[in-house]
């Protein structure tokens, strides 16, 4: 969700049980303004919070000229100092998919994973054990890009593609017309079951919409059993 609407839109998604403390809200309102200026973003969204055992990650995304392709992700441990995350590549996502357990809250922590690779050079297929080290920072980047890819939504019509091929927010977007899943009286709230913690909100008939992730950053792979 856009950080400028944080002070009122956060209440709309608070039904999931996680909120930001007043201190954090105040800090974010300050630091994200500075962030927007430094990186020359056109828009900054507060993406959410990933819970770790020792500390939590606060995630923000800066948007440049294009809403979808020109996006940079930053993380912070104290809501004040922001660090740029590397863009998630396919190999990074594959590598990090083997890690289990909660995030620690230490971006430089190394996860060790022993991988067995088959070596077909000799007569017999030899199995070689390679220890792969994965930084938590990489895991974080992979998790965020996966969540964005698999679960993040916007209402139809909220974005528009210009003749130049860039995707912008649709200025004339006036809210979706009919929405079936009505809850919390007049706000539409969608929660992802695959990524528990992702909440999307939209006030019908207004351009206000957004999503936030507050959770452990772990995919709910047990979903098929749980429905």
């Amino acid at each position, binding site marked *: 969700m856009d950080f400028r609407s944080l002070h009122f839109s956060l*209440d*709309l998604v*608070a*039904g*999931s*049980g*996680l*909120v*930001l*403390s*007043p*201190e*954090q809200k105040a800090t974010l309102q300050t630091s994200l303004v500075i962030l927007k200026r430094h990186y020359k973003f056109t828009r900054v969204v507060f993406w959410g*919070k990933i*819970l770790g*055992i020792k500390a939590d990650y606060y995630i923000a995304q800066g948007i440049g000229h294009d809403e979808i392709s020109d996006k940079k992700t930053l993380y912070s441990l104290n809501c004040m100092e922001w660090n740029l995350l590397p863009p998630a590549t396919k190999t990074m996502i594959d590598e990090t998919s083997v890690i*289990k*357990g*909660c995030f620690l809250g230490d971006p430089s922590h190394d996860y060790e994973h022993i991988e067995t690779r088959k070596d077909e050079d000799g007569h017999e297929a030899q199995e070689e054990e390679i220890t792969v080290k994965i930084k938590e920072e990489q895991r974080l980047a992979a998790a965020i890009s996966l969540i964005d890819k698999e679960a993040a939504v916007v209402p139809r019509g909220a974005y528009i593609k210009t003749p130049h091929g860039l995707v912008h927010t649709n*200025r*004339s977007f006036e809210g979706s017309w009919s929405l079936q899943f*009505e*809850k*919390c*009286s*007049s706000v539409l709230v969608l*929660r992802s*079951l695959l990524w*528990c913690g992702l909440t999307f909100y939209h006030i019908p008939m207004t351009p206000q919409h957004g999503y936030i992730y507050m959770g*452990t950053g772990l995919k709910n*792979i*047990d979903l098929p*059993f*749980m*429905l």
Partner: protein
Amino acid sequence: MLNNQRDLATSNAKAYLLKNSTKSNMNLYDHLARVLNKVLDERPENVVDMFEDLSKDIKRSQFSKKMDTLRDEPESSAAFDLAEIQKVLLSKGGAEGSEGQEVELVETPLPNVMELAFYFEQAGVGLSREETYCIYLALKQLVDSQPLQKCRFWGKILGTQGNYIVAEVEYREGEEEEEEGGEEDIDEAEKDYGKDDDEDKERQEDLDPLPKSSYKSPPVVPKEDNHTGVNKFIYFVCSEPGKPWIKLPQLTPAHIVAARDIKKFFTGHLDTPIVSCPPFPGNEAAYLRAQIARISAGTHISPLGFYQFGEEEGEEEEEEAVRDSFEENPDFEGTPISELVDTSTWVHHVQHILPQGRCVWVNLAQKKEDDFEEGEEEEEKEEEPDEPEPEVGPPLLTPVSEDAGVPRKCKAFSHLGMFLRFQVNAVFIKFENIYLGWGHKYSAENYSPPAPALLQQEYLSGPEITEVDDPSVEEEQALKAALEEQKAAVEEMEDMEEEEEEEDD
């Protein structure tokens, strides 16, 4: 002449622009006039970029609904229904309550939810303020309608179609008779169901005797009484503040044991049947109740020293019975914040649930000695089959830091981390536990349903049903030869007899 021509062209063009569209009955001239009017009225920045939008806007605003002579359709929406329900909550109850009653100061069990929400918010846990206030009002409604001694906002459990707001209550003594009725009905219904099954079996056996099953169902673990163990408190749930509070059924050990093996999303409707692989004996209400008990037992903690064991319990008793009651320590003066950061200063104040599904172990062997062996094996795999050792969990008021040493209970319910954090933030003596989430235990490994039990033997294995190797050709020929020899010998004998008979004639 020239002027005339120009005028003509102008009027022609105007006439063209004024031509109404056959589809929308609008013309471009009026439309452009309206658009320009709007632009000049509002004078927005960079008009040229949003000209299309403006035009579209104006076209849309021209649309008028056909006037209908029929009555208005009653507008029914979920939001309206909910608002009607919550209106009761929010309207001041001046009408029916006389002033005398309001002045009367009764010690109310109503918790100050707003104050607690403030502390939770400092730690980043909580609901929006409006929602918290509505919950507060709903709890007030519950306290007013039921004779309660204690009432606590336990938490909120999210579901796929609706959520549950959970209140933990304790009745005043002697005011809970009526609750027994429903429970027994269920038990009886289950018994009846069992009877039908037996009768069916008997009938079938008369017609066509089937092999008898050697399976004996494990003895049913008796449920714990009110005010003890997992049934210490009674829980009420409602889906939205203002909707009626529904009391959850009492918990049986079977529910807890079954709930450990499954992982399902709540739907938000209490009567939904739970369809799961190890079958769950009950509907969503029972599952919800079991999860509440498991979460409470796993995560509810208090600062060390806040509670103490009652003094009337002698030292000797301690070894036999698990102490299950405690009282507030009147001398507790609070722990400094610096110490509260350490997990060893926090203790569990809800009893651990044993693998049997109860807080206090019950020896089933004493009841039915014949049934005991199979039953015990089924339920407690850790135990020797012949001699039941009592299951012992960590005693009450065990520090949280000792949890890690017990590998069996990785009790990281997904929000435990948060429990700790908010409490550290709370003021010295104030502490509270709350659960907000999906109601599932966190596990590092994926959930996989337990494998089905091994197939039971239908018949005792004996030589007549044991499979043997097929005979080889040589063996067959040898047998054939042997049979022919035998046959020849018999025929010879018969011939002899016939000859003798003929001789007799």
